[in-house]
């Protein structure tokens, strides 16, 4: 049962029924970025439409820069962020793919751009529905990556993401992924904080040596092998610091709002023998499967990964090492090898049998039955299967 039914009348007033897209727009209104360069793509459109209305109604000072492509949106975002303006944007799928070249540069130039990604699969075939292929394409850009479970988290992580991105020890882009349609277009109650609290939480944007501050030098110089490596290392280390900074920021956020987040969340993991690992909105489905198996006295649990970059290796190792068997659910593929989240877990966790499950490509639903099947298979042997399973697609393959 959702907690909001039991809140007091005072607290209830802060709840509004919003889609994930609207919740992100509401966070944008409160954060009030200076520049918002953007190009439309489904399922990011609910975010930018809602935010455009907010700006049209004079409720945000943001300058919405409606550029002619995502490549230019990210390029303009880099220019604006380094110029000294708080800069945010949003995209999805082909739009993120089109941006990728410049996302690498945003990270390397240390531009703290916060971007909501309405996670959608990549063409082809062209398909507008949710999976994590787009986010995974940005895996190695050097951006911080968050995947949220619901609209509340989307709202909260836009706010926390701003603080993380702009922290002087970090200064990196943050990609906040919310599943296309499942989250961007579905309405649920979202607790909205007071404007003042959010503004105080994010603070003002202070980019060191901004281009417009009169102190700037040469940004984006050409680096030969004798310097490139060190510059890249500094950037990699900044991303690692992003994890430490994020931990402090979620704690501060919890103190102020009462909503406490873990970068990696364990669910009924106390004595679990078998566990699922997943990211994004389908975590709820697995939770239900866990509950129903727990009701049958099976020792199963769930781990939801919120922060994908930097990858919280130690937290995952701690949660999963005691388990006998793990199934990692990836909503994207790495044709020719194991999918991304699986590879991460493999590299981080020693001990348990680890299966790879690909699910939900191109927006297919993951059912509770799919998950229970995976748990059943995990229980059959302690041996590594060394295979990839396709949840929700196996039967079709057989039929076909």
């Amino acid at each position, binding site marked *: 049962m959702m907690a909001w039914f039991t809140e007091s009348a005072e607290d209830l007033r802060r709840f509004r029924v919003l889609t994930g897209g609207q919740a992100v727009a509401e966070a944008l209104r409160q954060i009030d970025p200076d520049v918002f360069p953007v190009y439309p793509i489904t399922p990011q459109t609910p975010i930018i439409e809602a935010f455009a209305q907010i700006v049209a109604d004079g409720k945000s000072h943001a300058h919405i820069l409606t550029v*002619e492509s995502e490549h230019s949106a990210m390029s303009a975002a880099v*220019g604006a962020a380094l110029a000294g303006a708080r800069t945010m944007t949003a995209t999805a799928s082909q739009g993120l793919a089109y941006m990728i070249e410049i996302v690498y540069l945003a990270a390397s130039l240390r531009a703290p751009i916060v971007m909501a990604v309405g996670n959608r699969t990549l063409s082809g075939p062209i398909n507008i529905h949710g999976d994590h292929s787009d986010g995974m394409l940005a895996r190695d850009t050097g951006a911080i990556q968050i995947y949220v479970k619901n609209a509340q988290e989307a709202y909260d992580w836009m706010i926390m993401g701003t603080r993380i991105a702009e922290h002087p020890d970090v200064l990196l882009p943050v990609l906040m992924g919310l599943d296309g349609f499942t989250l961007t277009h579905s309405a649920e109650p979202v607790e909205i904080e007071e404007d003042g609290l959010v503004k105080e939480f994010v603070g003002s944007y202070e980019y060191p040596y901004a281009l417009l501050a009169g102190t700037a030098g040469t940004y984006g110089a050409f680096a030969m092998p004798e310097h490139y490596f060190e510059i890249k290392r500094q950037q990699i280390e900044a991303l690692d610091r992003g994890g430490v900074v994020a931990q402090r920021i979620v704690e501060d956020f919890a103190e102020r709002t009462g909503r406490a987040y873990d970068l990696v969340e364990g669910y009924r993991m106390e004595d679990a023998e078998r566990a699922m690992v997943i990211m994004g909105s389908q975590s709820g489905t697995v939770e239900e499967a866990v509950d129903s198996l727990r009701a049958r006295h099976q020792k199963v649990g769930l781990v939801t990964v919120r922060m994908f970059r930097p990858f919280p290796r130690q937290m995952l190792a701690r949660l999963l090492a005691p388990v006998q068997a793990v199934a990692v659910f990836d909503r994207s593929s790495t044709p020719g090898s194991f999918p991304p989240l699986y590879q991460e877990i493999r590299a981080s966790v020693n001990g348990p049998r680890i299966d790879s499950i690909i699910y939900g490509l191109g927006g297919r639903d993951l059912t509770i039955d799919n998950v229970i099947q995976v748990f059943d298979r995990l229980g059959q042997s302690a041996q590594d299967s060394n295979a990839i399973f396709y949840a929700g697609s196996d039967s079709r393959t057989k039929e076909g």
Partner: protein
Amino acid sequence: MANLRTLAERISEEESFGSGHSMCRGCGVPIVVRTVLASIRTPVVVVNATGCLEVASTRYPVTAWSVPWLHVAFENSAAVASGVESAYMALRRKGAIHHDVTFVVFAGDGGTYDIGLQALSGALERGHRFLYVCYDNEGYMNTGIQRSGATPRAASTTTTPVGSESVGKSESRKDLTEIVLAHHIPYVAQAAISHVQDLSDKVERATKNQSASFLNVLSACPPGWGFEAQDSITMIQRAVNSGFWPLLEVIDGHWRLTSHPEPRQSVTEWFRSQKRFAHLFADHDVDLLDSLEEKTETEWRRLLALEERDREWFLSPAGQAWGLTG
């Protein structure tokens, strides 16, 4: 308008783009950069596209620039400048910034005619207040002299080499100035490194207006075109005096030529002085050269007619308000 002496003084005193770069001897691009920056009297922020200028002036940890300078990638400098300018507008509205800033983009012909055209078009349509300077050396020089949309027909480049089945580039260059004009921005001009005063005056007029402005400046590339470094200026003079590269400006849609070579010299002679066209002379490709002369003549007459059409406007108060001298 600053005269040549003033420009020279500013260039050596201010050193906005100083020594220490590694562009080739005889390269025309530093002349473009120094003249442009010495003609602007507000603080500037420079956005630079990938290309010879960027690579040869900012080899980490040294830099030839003493003004704020940003390079992101090859094809997006107009978009990056859009972002910088939007940041400026937003911060100014908030009261966080009070001083004037001029935004200048430097990009090569590859970064402008070809891969950067979409970003440029978008930025021009949106009307960001910046001066976009295309330094046109008629090819991708940084990557080893490949053809671009600005490379003249018949030029031998490393991707359009001459061979038994090839007389160099088989297509004519595109008329970027006309493409830019189709965006109806207030100020568009063609200039050249051989006419520094003209270039400087154009920068002053371009940066007066509160919208996007565009300068296409013909530069010289000794290794790319095949001539001796000390001949750069005369090389570009020939391009201008032959009508191959007319110096012109279009202000609020009104055309005028800012140089009237009398008599107009032959384009063939300009071609003859560059190794990239040597095959035309070795093979006596008279037809091609004749058609080139003819095309240039037709274009020149078209420009004269436009100039005639708009003569009155330049004498009117609206025209004079742009600070025209000649």
